[in-house]
C-alpha cells in the first residue's frame, strides 16, 4: 500500500510537471512577439513635427534601410537608401538639396532619379502618409 501510494504520488507529480513543460511553451507561444507581423509592409516613423524642413534621416524598414526626407517645402518623401551602384547607404544633402552617395559621388534628384555619377538605376520610392501627425512609410505597390 505504501509503495502503491508512493508510485501514485510520483505519477501524479510527474504528470503535473509534464503538463507544465507542455503548457509553458504553448502559452509563451500564444503571447505575441513585439513585431506582430512577419512581413513588413508598413513602418511608423515618429511624429511629423520631429522632422525640420530640408532634412533627411535613415529609417529601418524590415530588413531594408530607407531614407526619409523632408523637402524645403515641407513635403515628405521616402526612398530605398541603398545606392544602386555598389550598395552604399545614400544621404540627404541640405546644401545641394539632393540625395548623395558619398562612395563614388553619385547624385540623385528628389524623385530618386540619377542626376550624375555611376548609379545605373533610380532609387525605389516608398509611400509616405501622415496619420494623426504620425509618419507612416509603406511600400509602393503601384495601386495608387
Amino acid at each position, binding site marked *: 500500500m505504501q509503495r502503491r501510494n508512493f508510485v501514485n504520488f*510520483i505519477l501524479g507529480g510527474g*504528470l503535473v510537471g509534464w503538463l507544465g513543460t507542455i503548457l509553458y511553451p504553448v502559452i509563451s507561444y500564444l503571447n505575441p512577439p513585439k513585431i506582430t507581423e512577419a512581413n513588413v509592409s508598413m513602418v511608423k516613423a515618429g511624429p511629423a513635427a520631429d522632422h525640420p524642413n530640408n532634412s533627411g534621416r535613415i529609417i*529601418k524598414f524590415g*530588413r531594408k*534601410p530607407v531614407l526619409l526626407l523632408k523637402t524645403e517645402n515641407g513635403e515628405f518623401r521616402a526612398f530605398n537608401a541603398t545606392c544602386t551602384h555598389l550598395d552604399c547607404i545614400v544621404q540627404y544633402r541640405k546644401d545641394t538639396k539632393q540625395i548623395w552617395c*558619398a562612395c*563614388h559621388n553619385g547624385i540623385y534628384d528628389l524623385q530618386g532619379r540619377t542626376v550624375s555619377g555611376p548609379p545605373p538605376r533610380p532609387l525605389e520610392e516608398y509611400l509616405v502618409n501622415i496619420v494623426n501627425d504620425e509618419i507612416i512609410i509603406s511600400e509602393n505597390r503601384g495601386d495608387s
Partner: protein
Amino acid sequence: MNKRKQYIFLITLTISLNSNLAIFAEDKISMEKEDHCISCHIEDEVLPENFKDYDIHNQSGLGCSGCHGGDAAKEDMDEAMSEKSGFIGIPNKHQIPGICGKCHSDIEFMRQYQPRIATDQVEQYYTSFHGKKLLEGDKKVADCTNCHTSHAIISAKDPRSTVYALNVPQTCTQCHGDADYMKSYNIPTNQYTEYVKSIHGISLLEEQDTGSPACNDCHGNHGATPPGIISISHVCGLCHANNMQYFSTSVMGKVFEEQELHACEECHGYHQIEKTTYEMIGVGENSVCIDCHSEGDTGYLVADSISRLIMTAVTLHDSALIRQTEVIRKGMDDVEIGFLLGDAKQNLIQARTIVHTFDPDKVGEKTEASSSNSKAAISLADKEVEDYYVRRRGFGIATIFITIVVVALFVKIRDLEKKRLAEQSAQQQS
C-alpha cells in the same frame, strides 16, 4: 501648247531630272540621293575592310564623297574619281582632322543632326600631345580615325563603338601597348596590363560597371594629356569627392603641394590602382606611410595611431561577423545582428575615407562608432547562441519530467500485472 514650248518644257524637265542637287565644292557637303560611289564599290566588292553598315555617316546619308571628294552622281569611274571633281582618295594623315572638322567644328551644320553635340573636338585635339605631334609631321600618333575608325563610326554610347566605355582601354592600347611602335617616344607601354589588374579595370572590364573610369575619364578625350601634378587629386576627386576634400584641407595636402608630390598617385598609384587594404595605413612593412616617414617623426606616430584605431574596429567587425555566422548556422535569428553589422561596416568605410584627413581624432570618432556597433552585434549574437543552449536545457528538463512519468508508469504497470497475477492465482485456488 505649241511645239516650241513643248521642247523647252521637255528640255527643262530632262535637265532638272538629271541634274544633281549635290554640289561637290570643298566647302559644301553632299547628301546624295543616288550614291554611285558606294553602289559601285559594293558591286565590285571593294569596300574598305573596316566598313560597317551601322556607320553613322552611312546611315545619315553622308556618302563617300563627303570625305573623299569626287562626284557621286557620275556612274563612270574615271569621271567620278577625277581630280577635277575634287576626288582626293585616301587622305594624308595630317589632312584628317581638317576633313572631319569640316562638319564637326561647324555647330550650325551639326546641330541639324544633334542639337547639343560638341564642336570643339578638333580644337581640343590640337592642344593634345597627339595633335601637337601631328602638326610637327609625326605619322605615328593617333588621328580621328585611329580611335573612331574611318568607316565604322558610331556613337560612343553604342556598345559597338571603338570608343564605348568598355572598349576604350583596348582602343588606346592598340598603340600604347605596343613597345616597338612606341619606342621613339620613351614612355611606358604597360598601362593596359597594369589597368586590367587595377580595381577600375576589373570593375569596368569584368563587372562591366560603366561607372568605373576608362582611359579617357582621367586623360580626357580629344585633349588627351596625362593629368598634371596639381590636377591629379581633382581628377580622382571627380568620383572620390570626399577623399579629395579631406586630403586637400589636411596637413599632408599642403605639404604635397609644396613638395610637388603627385597627391593621390603617390600612395595609390595611377594605372594599377588596387583595392585598398588595411596594410597600407600604419607603420608595417607594406604600409605607404613609411615610404616617407621614419620612426620617431610626427607622421610616423600619426600613421601608427590611425592604423591602430582602424585595426581595432576591423578586428571587432570580423569577430562580429564570425559570431553572426555561428548564429545563422545554429538556425537562430540574425536580422537585427545584420543591421548592426551593416552600420558597423558603414562607419568603417567612413573611417577609411576620413583617414585622408590624417587626423587621429576624426578617424577615432568613426572607429569608435563602428566598434560600438560591432560590440552590440556581438552581444546580440551571444544572446542568440545562449538561447540556443537554453533550448537544450529546456529539453533536458522536459525529458526529466517525462522520464519520471515514464518510470512511474512502468512501475505502475508492473504492479498492476503482479496484482492481476495474484488475483488470478487466488481465483484458481478457490
